[in-house]
């Protein structure tokens, strides 16, 4: 029994490989369409990575600061800090003491003698201690700001700069979520179209072979014996397409990547591609093989009913 299964498997595989070679033009056409599909899917994937990193980058630039009245002691500020750190929405809290604020102010304005001079004349440090707060999500700032504005802290807190930036932050937040959602939908729609095109190509191939499938049935082949070579062919189509896509894609990426990096600093697609090469290649191959096999199986169904 085991021997028989192995023999069948061997025959089916041979027949699939044979058919892949002998139908060169059909294979070329199918692989070409699949390469286009896989390229599109890979591009969309990389695009979403780039867009995502831009969005995260933007998000990370947002923070709010709370300034404490001059008479607030350091321990009081640190107590607020530790309280803030306990809130789950808060990603990080950075304490800037009055002295640090002054030092920073001085280095920022060291080329402006007027300011330095007026500071010296003041004698005292006029700057307030502050906490810089980063939230995990851009939508969390509202609740953090209202927490700080509560009456509990009114004796200490001078200003929370969220209110001044509120409009900008809210706008950014809504832009980010729109970009993310519409990008996701665009990827789904384009991916779906690409899949349909491939499916149709394979369906046409199977349609052109419908008589052969019928003949196989009439000669006494079981359905799985007929499906076998088509499954092998589908796997081959998927693997070859994935390989071709990678061969086409990599040089293009190496060429384009510096241009993108010049435009958007901190994004190196080629490096991302290199670092995640195996995941991307595996994903491509899986999508290709899945498409090839499933499309064949679905397209064959009606011709196997004889």
């Amino acid at each position: 029994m085991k021997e028989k299964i192995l023999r069948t498997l061997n025959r089916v595989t041979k027949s699939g490989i044979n058919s892949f070679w002998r139908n060169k033009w059909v294979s070329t056409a199918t692989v070409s369409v699949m390469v286009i599909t896989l390229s599109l899917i890979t591009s969309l994937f990389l695009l979403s990575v780039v867009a995502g990193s831009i969005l995260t980058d933007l998000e990370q630039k947002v923070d709010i600061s709370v300034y404490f009245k001059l008479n607030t002691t350091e321990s009081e500020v640190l107590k607020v800090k530790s309280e803030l750190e306990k809130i789950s929405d808060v990603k990080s809290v950075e304490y800037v003491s009055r002295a640090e604020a002054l030092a920073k102010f001085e280095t920022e304005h060291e080329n402006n003698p007027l300011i330095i001079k007026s500071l010296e004349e003041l004698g005292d440090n006029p700057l307030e201690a502050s906490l810089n707060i980063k939230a995990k999500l851009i939508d969390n700032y509202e609740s953090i700001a209202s927490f700080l504005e509560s009456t509990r802290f009114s004796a200490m807190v001078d200003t929370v700069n969220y209110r001044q930036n509120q409009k900008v932050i809210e706008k950014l937040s809504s832009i980010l979520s729109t970009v993310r959602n519409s990008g996701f939908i665009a990827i789904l729609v384009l991916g779906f179209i690409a899949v349909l095109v491939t499916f149709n190509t394979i369906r046409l191939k199977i349609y052109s072979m419908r008589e052969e499938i019928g003949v196989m049935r009439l000669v006494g082949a079981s359905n799985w014996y007929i499906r076998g070579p088509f499954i092998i062919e589908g796997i081959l189509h998927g693997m070859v397409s994935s390989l071709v896509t990678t061969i086409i894609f990599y040089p293009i990426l190496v060429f384009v990547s510096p241009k993108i990096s010049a435009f958007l600093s901190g994004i190196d697609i080629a490096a991302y591609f290199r670092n995640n090469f195996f995941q991307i290649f595996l994903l491509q191959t899986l999508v290709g093989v899945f498409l090839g096999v499933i499309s064949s199986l679905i397209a064959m169904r009606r011709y196997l009913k004889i």
Partner: protein
Amino acid sequence: MIHFKNVSKIYLPHMVALENVNLIIKSKEFVSLVGSSGAGKSTLLRMLIGEEAPSMGEIIVGDVSINSLSNKEMPYMRRKIGTVFQDYKLLPTKTAYENIAFAMEVAGKDDMEIKEDVPQVLSLVGLEDKAKQFPYQLSGGERQRVAIGRALVHRPDILVADEPTGNLDPVNTWEVVNLLLKLNELGATVILATHDNSIVNNLERRVVLMEKGRVVKDDLKGKYLI
């Protein structure tokens, strides 16, 4: 034994292809099924190999009712019936050798057996030297001989030939008919559907005449007169 029991085939809405056909074909018989195009010969044969189901009635081969077989059981039945068609129905991407071997492969025969039997069959149909040719490289007569080779390679009990000479010249026609006769001598039941009266009149075997979906004449040593 093959038994067509009250078989009718109606293509909806109201095209009657077969009307209440009753026919018994004994084992090892050579039967010519004659009649003009559209008389129902092909429909009858297509039902015998399960390519189509009757609208009414039953077809029994041996002790199996063909129309009760499932899609899964059908292949096993078909391996016992060899089929030859007017349009050869060869697999275009397989060579003559592979076409014949395919019939054995699907039946799960082992490689040794295939390597032994296929060359034998090829020489039986006179195509030893064309083994590696693809169907498009063969003439009509050669293609039909490959098809016959494929039909007989697993020594079927029944050979069904539907207008096998329809596309052939007289010389090739007789080669094919002689092959069928040889197979019959070797013990196969042969059913030959044809509208070529010269074949039938020379055979002097049982002739079943069909007209408009009915069996109208059944002679044990018949002639087919138009």
